[in-house]
């Protein structure tokens, strides 16, 4: 009996279930006991109560009389906001540095590799501390570093002139989205036609025209607003324009420069992974340099680049939790405040982990779907 592989397998599994179950039960009963002695109510009812704390930055309306649930929503949006912008900057910067490392220009290549080696070997937290320290060393409001009337940099952050609110701006955003959709449809149609009849349709220039034209047209149709709000010194601070807080800037700069060093390595490895023969074969087929890059080199490089790139994006999103160290009100710092105020540690941490897990699993789901699509189909 005991020598039978199946029986032993079942025994092992029962043992694991028993072990995990009893440890879980032990922790569970302890927790129940501790909660009852401390008179903490378990449950998410506290989310409906009034939060009673200020949040310095919010993408949706928030004031202390609103609920904890609303505060969490603000936190999640703040996290996503900094992560999204950070991802864009890190990708652009990282790609530039990665390509520079492969440059035939010795100086540029050396500079790029120095950047990578410095950035990725310093704890992100310390980089954030230094950036934040530098921001506090900036001059006060009245002595702001300025660029004309457009831009003012001081201890309170960065004030930039910004178009006055007008319905045309939101409409333009939708127009841009519509343009992207139309562009994709047009590309599909052109491909289909080429496959059916052999006649290529222009894709690149129509796409550019759509992307630029549609928003511009919307802008013109809705009254072509041109008024711009300039920052004006009023009392102790500037009014008008938009303000970027030092906390947000610290986090954004720190996250994107740190991650860009890793992205640079990913991009470099991806480019090196494409066999030289592929480019040469494309050349001998008579493809133009643009086609060679777009049809032969890039698709192969991207297959290598995209999986590690996504995990860098995930890392950036998870690292945005360091916001709590510089005082940017992201999800973690909202959860932290909530925990201190209500004592609902169990629930707050459950929400935290739930949100991060949802983000991570969603991204890895798309990742796997993409990997399936671009996988090398071999015999």
């Amino acid at each position, binding site marked *: 009996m005991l020598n039978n592989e199946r029986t032993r*397998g079942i025994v*092992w*599994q029962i043992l*694991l*279930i028993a072990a*995990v179950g009893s440890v879980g039960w032990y*922790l569970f009963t*302890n*927790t129940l*006991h*501790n*909660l009852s*002695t401390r008179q903490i109510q378990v449950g998410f009812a506290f989310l409906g109560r009034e939060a009673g704390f200020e949040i310095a930055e919010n993408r949706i309306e928030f004031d202390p009389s609103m609920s904890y649930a609303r505060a969490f929503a603000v936190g999640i949006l703040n996290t996503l906001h900094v992560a999204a912008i950070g991802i864009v900057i890190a990708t652009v910067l990282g790609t530039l540095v990665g390509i520079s490392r492969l*440059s*035939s*220009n*010795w*100086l*540029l290549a050396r*500079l790029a590799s120095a950047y990578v*080696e*410095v950035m*990725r*070997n*310093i*704890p*992100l*937290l*310390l*980089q954030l*501390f*230094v950036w934040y*320290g*530098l921001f506090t*060393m900036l001059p006060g409001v009245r002595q702001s570093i300025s660029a004309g009337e457009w831009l003012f940099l001081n201890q309170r952050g960065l004030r930039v002139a910004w178009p006055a609110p007008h319905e045309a701006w939101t409409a333009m955003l939708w127009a841009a989205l519509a343009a992207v959709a139309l562009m994709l449809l047009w590309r599909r149609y052109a491909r289909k036609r080429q496959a059916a009849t052999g006649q290529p349709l222009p894709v690149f220039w129509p796409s550019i025209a759509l992307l630029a034209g549609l928003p511009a047209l919307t802008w013109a149709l809705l009254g072509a607003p041109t008024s711009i709000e300039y920052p004006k010194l009023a009392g102790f601070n500037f009014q008008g324009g938009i303000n970027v807080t030092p906390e947000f800037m610290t986090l954004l700069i720190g996250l994107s420069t740190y991650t860009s060093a890793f992205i640079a390595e990913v991009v470099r490895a991806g480019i090196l992974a494409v066999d030289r023969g592929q480019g040469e074969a494309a050349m001998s087929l008579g493809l133009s340099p643009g086609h060679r890059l777009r049809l032969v080199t890039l698709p192969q490089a991207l297959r290598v680049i995209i999986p590690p790139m996504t995990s860098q994006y995930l890392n950036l999103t*998870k*690292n945005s*939790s*360091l916001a*709590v*160290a510089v005082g940017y009100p992201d999800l*973690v710092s909202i*959860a*932290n405040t909530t*925990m201190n105020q209500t004592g609902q*540690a*169990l629930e707050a*941490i459950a929400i*935290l*982990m739930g949100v*991060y*897990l949802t*983000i*991570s*699993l969603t991204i890895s789901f798309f990742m796997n779907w993409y990997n399936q699509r671009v996988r090398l189909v071999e015999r």
Partner: protein
Amino acid sequence: MAAIGWLRIHLFSSALNSILTILIVAVLAWVLPGIFSWLIWDAVWGPQQPAACEAARGEGACWSVVWAKIRFMMFGTYPFGEQWRSGATIFVLTGLIVVSAIRWFWNRWLIAIWMVGIALSFWLMGGGLGLTPVKAEQWGGLPVTLILAIFGIGFAFPLGILLALGRRSQLPVIQAFSVIYIEAIRGVPLITVLFMASVMFALFMPEGMRIEQLLRAQIAIVLFIAAYMAEAVRGGLQAVPRGQYEAAEALGLSYWRAMGLIILPQALKISIPPIVNIFISVFKDTSLVVIIGIYDFAYAVKKSVETDIAWRNYIVEAFLFSILIYWIYCFAMSKYSQWLEGQLARGERR
């Protein structure tokens, strides 16, 4: 002449490259003098009073802050008279890293060396057996950073191997458990796990049982790294050819003997470079314990300057100093990891 040839090939090979080179040189010539004069030439060096730094403020860095605070930065709140023990721990643990990097030690003896190293540093820090006992609450500075990272990776290693084997197991319950654990941990940031250790641990334990904050953070770090370690080991396991598994089975070896004698030795060799990379990121990430208030190196540096009004304005210099220390450790290890990857790949090439 050779120099000119080199310049032509590497800097001026085309019109675009020439423009780039000139542009970069111009930017460097514009930026570097300012940076270097702040960092070095106009900086205040040596054990000087805050007044000397005040005079140079804005012109040069104040490195005197490092002279003034070095003991606290390095050892935190460790009793002043006993700080040689903290210093010795830094040497023991750094030595442990160096020894582990040498291939000659990659055998059973390494486990023994690690046990001795861990026990020795524990004894040095904690006292007993002839040394004055020092409570873990008083530990601080660089030794704490090294302890969190090295103990972390040391204890996560066996756990990671078990999880990796579990994930590749044929037994559905064991596999499901491993997958859920690995993916759940990898999906959340380290901070949330540290929060859990710092806030929720007290709820989980029986009433009256208190566990040191440092130990709680250490457990959290071990559990966190184990998931990443498992993925590194799994990569190694997948790279071992199927024939090896079949050969082990054909010899009639039991599962554990097949793994221990045939599969793992090959798989672990492949996983070493990713494991070194995990260690580098753990070393950097231990700085997050700052957020739950543990006196690791980063926090000791921060506190040492923040709490002293005379030196408070020179916190950036203090951080730059700590950055240098972290960087030396991480850069050395990442160079080693790159070198090792090449060395190990050499054996595979024919």
